């Protein structure tokens, strides 16, 4: 008997590989300097879902993302790797959503897919690094959740066993379906695209039958609870990080220089 698997993914700016300034002069994020990529931990979530599908024949992997039409790229990459179906949740009214409003929209979209057993998502996205959307979506759905999972150890017809990677060790927990799991990047390395699937999907666009676009009305969301309107937190200000210069002491790479360094460290009780 197959399981219905939903994977939540996000297209993010590649914060590890910034070219140029991260901020524009007007204080907004300079998206142009940041190449858009598949959020790394979401790829691990997709991989975990595909492995569950392989272990439970007849399962379906459905991938959802919320974002502008250009986010179709992460859905195509999901199809290349073996997702059965995808949908792009896109509507101007979702703009400015914080984690609470985002999790509400995702909840509505997940319910639109029909009956589901396991929802997978990355633990956190590298643009915001909040790790809040997973747990908040679980609570909006009213289902169980297991965060910081590195491996799904076992899936049965009605429950799974997962290993949580926490400070200093691992917790092993069991939960009945439906359950939401957030995956870290310590698990199975995500597979690469299948050449045949790339050929099949590479020319598809958002709006094509393979990549449907879901609006606020399509997922039955309440406008008041979406976007900026549905967000309790507000951004007050944003500033670029400037690293402060210290009272830097240059140490010469010589016998004397290194001895002086040791003496300084001993003198202020850092050492000894």
């Amino acid at each position: 008997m197959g399981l219905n698997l939903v994977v939540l993914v996000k297209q993010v700016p590649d914060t590890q590989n910034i070219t140029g300034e991260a901020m524009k002069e007007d204080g907004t994020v300079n998206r142009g300097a940041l190449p858009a990529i598949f959020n790394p931990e979401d790829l691990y979530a997709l991989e975990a879902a595909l492995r569950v599908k392989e272990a439970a024949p007849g399962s379906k992997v459905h991938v959802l993302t919320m974002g502008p039409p250009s986010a179709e790229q992460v859905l195509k990459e999901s199809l290349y790797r073996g997702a059965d179906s995808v949908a792009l949740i896109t509507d101007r009214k979702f703009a400015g959503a914080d984690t609470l409003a985002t999790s509400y929209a995702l909840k509505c979209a997940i319910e639109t897919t029909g009956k589901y057993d396991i929802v997978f998502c990355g633990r956190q996205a590298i643009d915001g690094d909040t790790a809040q959307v997973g747990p908040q979506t679980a609570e909006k759905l009213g289902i169980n959740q297991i965060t910081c999972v590195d491996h799904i150890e076992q899936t049965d017809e009605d429950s799974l066993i997962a290993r949580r990677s926490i400070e200093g060790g691992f917790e092993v927990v069991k939960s009945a379906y439906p359950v939401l799991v957030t995956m870290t990047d310590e698990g199975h390395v995500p597979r690469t695209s299948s050449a045949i699937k790339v050929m099949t999907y590479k020319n598809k666009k958002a709006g094509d039958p393979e990549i449907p676009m879901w609006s606020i009305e399509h997922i039955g969301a309440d406008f008041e609870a979406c976007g900026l309107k549905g967000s309790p937190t507000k951004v007050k200000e944003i500033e670029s990080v400037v690293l402060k210069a210290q009272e830097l002491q240059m140490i010469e790479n010589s016998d004397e220089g290194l001895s002086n360094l040791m003496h300084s460290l001993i003198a202020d009780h850092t050492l000894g």
Partner: protein
Amino acid sequence: MSYIWTLAEQANGHLKQVSFELLTRGRKLADSLDTKLASLLIGNGVSAEALRELILSGADEVYYVEDPRLASFSCETYSNIMVELIKTFQPHTILAAATSSGRTLMPYVAVRVKTGLTADCTELDIEETTGNLLQTRPAIGGNILATIKTPNHRPQMATVRPKSTRPPEPDADRDGKIINVPFKEEWLDGRVEFLGYRKDAGDFENIEEADIIIAGGKGMKKAENFKMLRRLSDSLEGMVGATRDAVDRGWIGYSHQIGLSGKTVSPKLYIGAGISGSIQHLAGIKTSEIIVSINNDPEAPLHKIADFAIVGDLFNVLPELQKRLEGGK
């Protein structure tokens, strides 16, 4: 005026250090609002003396919910307790640690009490004109700092990065109330069943607790060269850290990774060898007391924030330092 709350954490009946760091944050907020600071603890087997330490470190009141079934973290059960206490006492602000449990529990609770939550804050302040909590956190890979507020919803909730501040000096004269909150059966939620705990095998080290850290980056060139760092850290009774680059190359385990995607550390002495200093790494070390940078590139960003910079070949400098340590300094 409603109170400021911190959520203390325990393991096996012992309070975690981060519980005290939160009191440093909370005390400052409570004082600027002229209100009281309370610490909430959920767990089992914590002694009265340990609870008393929370008072000595700045709490005015401690709410303790105790039961053997609360010994290990359960998001569903813990959130039932928090939601009821929040509804009863209506705190102004709740601060929790940005640990694996804090970052799981707080989002869940925020949804249930319908309020905002800001993750992994590094600075907290009160806005003078409104009394709102100003929550500052790094975003976009540490390249920006965003200040967030929750103007119309209460409580205001934030998780705080462990080690981003120091615990307060305990004050033996401080007085406060310890309130044992009676446990209710109805709080228990067994939907997610705890099967067991396994200690990390391999080379796990809790570098967040280290006083001295010797860290290596891409400039270490290969895994074997980390032995030089290990030897130096053994002589100094320190621990070995690494950049994401070094961990991604498989030179050392993830538990050693420092930076936004790893641990934040705040040792007395941090020595970085062959680390250019990406903004993500620097965000994880900036509360260190003394930073020493060893790099042959004079333009390395780590040199710029260091207290002592050695422009030189680490393969020459590290053995020289080792020699001096072994030669009785």
